[in-house]
């Protein structure tokens, strides 16, 4: 294959937007979470556990972790794009990151619904 | 001798400032194979520093027409300008300015959406009645906006640039036809022959022959040096414009647009002295008139500053809003180079060498004119020139502000058109190069490369600049000029044995400066010899022993030839193309 500098993958805006939107989601959740935490009458396991019993908080947390995953994906991919110039190696690293992030989200589900 | 590399083109343009780019555009859009050579990246050419505007009688703000523009230009030239060429330029002005707007030039605008125009020195309505708004401007960055626009349009037209290539010499055959140029690639130090049917010189001026100059370091008259060495005369070289407002000490230009917007000059007594010298248009008189008035004030002890060495340019009364909107670059320059904020304090200014009215003689199509063996004026086949390096002559003895940007648009275009026409008509293949074509150039380079000692480029250059400044400035004296000629002849000898320590190939700027000095000295010599011979005062040439204009003996153009510093003269073209002549009369502003 000729060695050409190829650019023009039209997902720049989408990923940029994803990063911004997920950042907003994460910030909002963080605020809600902190407020809830400080509003707990007592700082013990029972109250902590109760916090996660409603589905609203569970889904909100899930949304947070999905956002975190997407946010991390765009960030990690950018880092690999900057530093890893070999395409094959880059694909392997991408796959690894995706696998890890999906695992983390699945793990988060397990924890949230397991409490 | 080893052969040098060679490339062939339809046309070679030397220089990528305003005129070079305007011409190149014409050639590229005609699908010719063009090479544009430039010592610097095109947008670094000195057109970029032009500030105030480009004139065209668009009449956007008030009634105006090309007849009035023509009259102002003829009068401004102190009747030395060729009236056919001046008519051509003034009639073409609206067309080329509008064209530039279509290319994307970011002109300032009026409320009705049309191009903004401001008053400028020497521009009047109804044949000198009062100042008129004729200068089309992009704030005080008109040259910058224009040069970038022209470069951008050339990018669109896929013009082929050879950036950081310096042309060294014109190549002519035994019939005197020009066959191209030899050029040096600065990055590698390699030399190449650019063979072409047409060679267009657009190398700009040589303001660096003076110590105090508004010009960039690259303005070394390379095209003029090349022409002079190739036996082509230089016309009217005694006429150098001293811009009234260069920042004192630094030389950096402060546009006449400052006075166009309402600024004015003060002496140390706070007197608006231009009222005495030019009662009608005051600070907006022609540049030669204003510069002389300023020099007179300084000479007679009314200059401001510790040693009374400068004049004050006051503009604070315009208010911060107008200054920031119309003159933002000036505020920047004043703060940086004069340590004053013009919103509060006046700027210290002195007349500073700015523009070369003379140059390589051409007709309005940019074709270069030289004398044949019988002394008759003939067109040099294959050679064209446009812009400041050319003398059409539209500026005569003194250029009006904003006419230089107009000159490069009009004559860059017309020269380009003529090249296209001539190439279309000439179906013959490129003529053969004489076998020894590169010898002189290579010998010049070899001397620099092999010499073990000699004159310092800096010292010879300084001596030339000092001599020009001292002996050939705003006011010229017979003894001073005679001494100046003697000194320049010595400089002319010394420059033949310049020496550089750096012998390396890659981006050897010492070598470039040595070659540039060769060109500068040709121009300085032409200036001094021509000025010494002209025994009258006209436009920018002011002699103490002949204080008046002498239309009987001196209504003629000087032609200087390098060979033996010979001078010849040719008549001024007083007959315009279609209108009545403007008869010479006393110049009052």
């Amino acid at each position, binding site marked *: 294959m000729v060695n050409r500098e190829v650019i023009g993958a039209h997902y720049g805006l989408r990923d940029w937007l994803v990063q911004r939107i997920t950042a907003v989601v994460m910030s909002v959740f963080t605020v809600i979470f902190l407020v809830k935490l400080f509003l707990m009458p007592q700082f013990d396991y029972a109250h902590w556990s109760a916090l996660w019993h409603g589905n609203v908080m569970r889904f909100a947390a899930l949304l947070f972790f999905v956002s975190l995953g997407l946010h991390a994906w765009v960030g990690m991919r950018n880092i690999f794009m900057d530093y890893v110039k070999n395409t094959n190696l880059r694909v392997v690293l991408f796959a690894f990151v995706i696998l890890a992030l999906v695992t983390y989200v699945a793990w988060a589900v397990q924890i949230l619904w397991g409490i | 001798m080893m052969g040098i590399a060679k490339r062939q083109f339809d046309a070679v343009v030397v220089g990528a400032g305003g005129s070079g780019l305007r011409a190149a555009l014409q050639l590229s859009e005609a699908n010719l194979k063009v090479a544009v050579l430039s010592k610097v990246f095109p947008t670094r050419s000195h057109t970029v520093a032009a500030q105030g505007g480009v004139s065209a009688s668009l009449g956007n703000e008030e009634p105006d027409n090309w007849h009035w523009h023509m009259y102002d230009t003829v009068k401004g030239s102190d009747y030395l300008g060729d009236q056919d060429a001046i008519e051509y330029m003034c009639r073409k002005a609206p067309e080329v300015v509008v064209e530039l707007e279509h290319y994307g030039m970011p002109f300032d605008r009026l409320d009705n959406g049309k191009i903004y125009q401001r008053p400028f020195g020497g521009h009047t309505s109804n044949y000198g009645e009062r100042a008129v708004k004729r200068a089309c401007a992009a704030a005080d960055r008109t040259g910058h906006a224009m040069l970038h626009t022209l470069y951008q349009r050339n990018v669109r037209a896929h013009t082929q640039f050879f950036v950081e290539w310096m042309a060294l010499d014109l190549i002519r055959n035994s019939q005197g036809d020009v066959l191209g140029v030899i050029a040096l690639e600065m990055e590698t130090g390699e030399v190449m022959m650019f063979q072409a049917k047409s060679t267009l010189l657009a190398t700009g001026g040589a303001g660096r022959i003076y110590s105090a100059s508004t010009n960039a370091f690259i303005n070394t008259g390379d095209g003029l040096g090349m022409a002079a060495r190739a036996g082509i005369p230089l016309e009217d070289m005694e006429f150098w414009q001293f811009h009234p407002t260069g920042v004192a000490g630094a030389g950096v230009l402060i546009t006449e647009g400052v006075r166009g917007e309402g600024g004015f000059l003060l002496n140390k007594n706070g007197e608006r002295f231009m009222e005495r010298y030019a009662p009608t248009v005051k600070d907006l008189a022609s540049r030669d008139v204003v510069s002389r008035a300023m020099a007179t004030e300084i000479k007679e002890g009314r200059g401001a500053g510790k040693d009374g060495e400068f004049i004050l340019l006051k503009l604070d009364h315009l208010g911060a809003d107008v200054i920031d909107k119309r003159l933002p670059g000036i505020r920047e320059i004043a703060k940086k*180079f004069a340590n004053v904020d013009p919103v509060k304090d006046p700027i210290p200014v002195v007349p500073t060498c700015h523009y070369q009215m003379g140059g390589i003689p051409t007709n309005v199509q940019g074709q270069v004119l030289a004398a044949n063996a019988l002394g008759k004026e003939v067109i040099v086949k294959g050679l064209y020139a446009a812009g400041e390096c050319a003398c059409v002559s539209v500026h005569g003895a003194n250029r009006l502000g904003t006419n230089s940007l107009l000159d490069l648009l009009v004559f860059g275009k017309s020269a380009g058109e003529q090249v296209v026409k001539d190439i279309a008509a000439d179906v013959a293949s490129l003529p053969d190069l004489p076998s020894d074509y590169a010898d002189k150039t290579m010998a010049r380079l070899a001397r620099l490369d092999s010499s073990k000692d000699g004159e310092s480029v800096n010292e010879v250059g300084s001596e030339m600049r000092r001599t020009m400044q001292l002996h050939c400035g705003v006011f010229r004296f017979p003894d001073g000029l005679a001494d100046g000629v003697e000194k320049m002849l010595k400089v002319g000898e010394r420059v033949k044995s310049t020496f550089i320590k750096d012998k390396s190939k890659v981006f050897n700027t010492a070598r470039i400066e040595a070659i540039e000095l060769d060109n500068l000295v040709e121009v300085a010599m032409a200036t001094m010899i021509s000025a010494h011979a002209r025994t009258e005062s006209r436009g920018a040439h002011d002699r103490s022993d002949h204080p008046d204009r002498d239309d009987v003996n001196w209504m003629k153009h000087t032609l200087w030839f390098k060979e033996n510093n010979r001078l010849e003269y040719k008549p001024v073209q007083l007959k315009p193309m279609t209108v009545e002549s403007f008869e010479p009369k006393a110049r009052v502003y």
Partner: protein
Amino acid sequence: MRFEIYRFNPDVDSKPRMQSYDVEMEPTDRMLLDGLMRLKVQDDTFSFRRSCREGVCGSDAMNINGKNGLACITKLADLKEPVVIRPLPGLPVIRDLIVDMSQFFKQYHSIKPYVTNDTPAPEMERLQSPEDREELNGLYECILCACCTTSCPSFWWNPDKFVGPAGLLQAYRFIADTRDLATNERLDNLEDPYRLFRCHSIMNCVDVCPKNLNPTKAIGKIKDLLVKRAV
């Protein structure tokens, strides 16, 4: 005055070195360029680009005490000694302070830097209101000196793919021009993870621009337009 200058001449040096100079200054010397010119007289092998000496041509951009700037408008009085001068970072050095700027100009050319308007040209100028013209202020003044682009880490990492602040500022200059009718094509041209979106608003460009322009703001406006187009 004491200078530490980056020197490299491929004809004689195998690798770059820093050289110290003491230069005798005159009271009239105001700017760094004046000092470098004196140094050049002292040692003619020292090479750098310069032309207009008033900050409009963009030739003498260099790294001055760690910050990119133009030598001709950097006041000597403001500089800490020894003045350490290096070539612009992130571009290949040809010799001494002279860098190969082809990558920079390639990116500038890649944004199609010319007004595109294929409608028939009117007899006179295309009209533009003063307010519309105002949009070009802060954009058209760019002198292509490359101070901004070569101070941008995103450009250091991807000089072949990221347009860089100077190019993007110009991209917006044409988008902002009411006479230009190619906004969509221009946005398409930038809609890529590298070309525009490698800008992470580090703002080194704004910090160093000798003309006080703000590429980050222009880039933000391009992003806004992309969003507006997509949603």
